[in-house]
């Protein structure tokens, strides 16, 4: 039984690791992975309660752009192992979850960096027209993400809880504070990449318009999204470059522009 439990916990950890990057089925969310570990170790009640507690802490942890949230996957899996297999109580396990989330973040940053090498292997496969090679690279990277939670989970099961806690406490606070601070602003790299691709002289003013409006806290993101869509529609509708081209196309008579048709309906 114990052996089967260990194997099943490793499976859950692997799923959580894969989901921490995919963000689809949500097995990396503590409410799911703690519950699952609770069930496979025969402590479903503890698992569910721990999962709910950690979920409330992790509500705002999300990956935006290139920004990285603390890693809910390792935090949930590790604390569930402590509670369900090592008899730690829920409050203690919650305290351990935070440094675990930071450790998990460091690990996934490492994996996402070495995946750059895998991307170059995929380029090479693509230039040979090797479809299977590209697929292998893609799924291989996913397996590494699974292992980056499964392997620490195995280590945590194998060594005493005190040793893990001592190891985590040995990490100086300026490293954890620094990592989480940088995690808050590293997002700008992703934004800068997207801006570099979209930006031209014509569209830069809209960037500053958005920036200025963002300081009005009364305007939610949906309202700002509506403003953005309206501005884009009106600009495209009035822009002289399209209107001269549009009248020439209209003279041909064949292609009635569907967007124009829709917009005309509103007039």
């Amino acid at each position, binding site marked *: 039984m114990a052996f089967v439990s260990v194997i099943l916990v490793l499976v859950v950890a692997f799923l959580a690791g894969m989901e921490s*990057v*995919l*963000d*689809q*089925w*949500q097995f990396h969310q503590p*409410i799911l992975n703690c519950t699952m570990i609770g069930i496979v170790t025969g402590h479903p009640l503890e698992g*569910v*309660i721990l999962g*709910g507690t950690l*979920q*409330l802490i992790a509500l705002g942890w*999300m990956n*935006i752009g290139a*920004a990285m949230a603390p890693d809910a996957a390792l935090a949930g899996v590790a604390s569930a192992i402590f509670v369900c297999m090592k008899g730690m109580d829920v409050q203690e396990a919650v305290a351990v979850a935070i440094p675990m989330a930071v450790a998990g973040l460091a690990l996934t940053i490492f994996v996402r*960096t070495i995946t750059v090498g895998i*991307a170059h292997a*995929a*380029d090479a496969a*693509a230039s040979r027209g090797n*479809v299977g090679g*590209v697929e292998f690279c*893609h799924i*291989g*990277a996913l397996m590494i*993400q699974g292992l980056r939670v499964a392997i620490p989970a195995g280590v945590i099961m194998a060594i005493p809880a005190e040793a893990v806690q001592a190891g985590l406490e040995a990490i100086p606070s*300026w490293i954890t504070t*620094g*990592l989480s*601070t940088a995690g808050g*602003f*590293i*997002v*700008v*790299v992703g*934004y*800068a*990449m*997207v*801006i*570099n*691709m*979209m930006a031209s002289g014509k*569209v*830069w003013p*809209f*960037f500053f318009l*958005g920036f200025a*409006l*963002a*300081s009005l806290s009364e305007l939610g993101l*949906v309202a*700002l999204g509506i403003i*953005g869509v309206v501005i884009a529609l009106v600009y495209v509708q009035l822009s002289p470059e399209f209107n001269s081209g*549009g009248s020439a196309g209209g003279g*041909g008579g064949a292609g*009635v*522009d*569907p*967007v124009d048709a829709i917009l005309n309906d509103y007039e």
Partner: protein
Amino acid sequence: MADEIKQEVDTSIDTADTGEKKIDKSDIKKVWWRSQFLLASFNYERMQNMGVAFSLIPAMRKLYHSKDEISAFLKRHLEFFNTHPYCAAPIFGVEMALEENRANGGEVDDAAIQGVKIGMIGPLAGVGDPIFWGTLRPVLGAFAASLALTGNILGPILFFVIWNLIRMLFIWYTLEFGYEQGASITKNLTGGLLQKITLGASILGMFIMGVLIPRWTSIDMSTVVFSKADMGAVGDKFPDAIAMIGQLNGIVNGEPMGLDVFHNGIQSLQGVVDGGFSIVNDPANYADNPYRLMTTTTLQSVLDQLLPGLLPLLLTFLCIWLLKKHVNPIAIIVGLFAVGILGALVGIF
């Protein structure tokens, strides 16, 4: 209008009979399944690039057969891509339609295929991140967690079922929608519609980027304190707050509690926060009124008065400039982490 659409459908059926390559429902289904693995190989160089190629492979198998065509297809879909993982579905739909047009010798070229991708990722990330990560998951998570805290297994089960139902249906319908819209776009390329959409998407994208940079980036410089000023005892300006503290002490000593005292006290504390004050307990210097009202001038409060979101904006421009100088994005990311750790070491974060 309805007649027009019908005509279009008729012609597409006709052309299918004449041996044109056509993406069908089963191809869309395969792309739907694969797109759920979009993020598997996320990397700091081109982010979701392998995921795009991986997701679109079923469409490629239908459209292209020679080794050169396959190689070219894979290469043009291994370019930089990064958006919300569910909102990538409509982009894949449009891309399938564009590739279909290209494979049949249509007017769509590589630049159009790239342009549409780049034009759409920004706005869709701007829509998907706040909706799914910022709203739906916290709401559903909080609801499920409140059930789970009582030991109710329905919490996790409902979370799993509701989330995945919404997610899978969203991806399916937006993928189909993107494909249908893409197919109608390719029929009207002469009207400049593609350029209009690309420009409109860039405008929306830049606008949303301008919004998200100050809102979603957190740089807090309030640890850097310029000056602290004692503005007198808390009780002078906010007597209700002191009354509440007295009440709290009373409860500890077993006295009954008065709800209205708490109500007024909390409102009073809100006034303290809104006024930009903080409260310090200083019995050593002020024995009579130990709770002192402080105004703290920090680097952050000065910057906020100047222009909210100034630091994220400057940092973004620095990154844009570095990327234009062909500095490797990984180097920038490592550098930013170094700044964070060094900043924490010297105590500015």
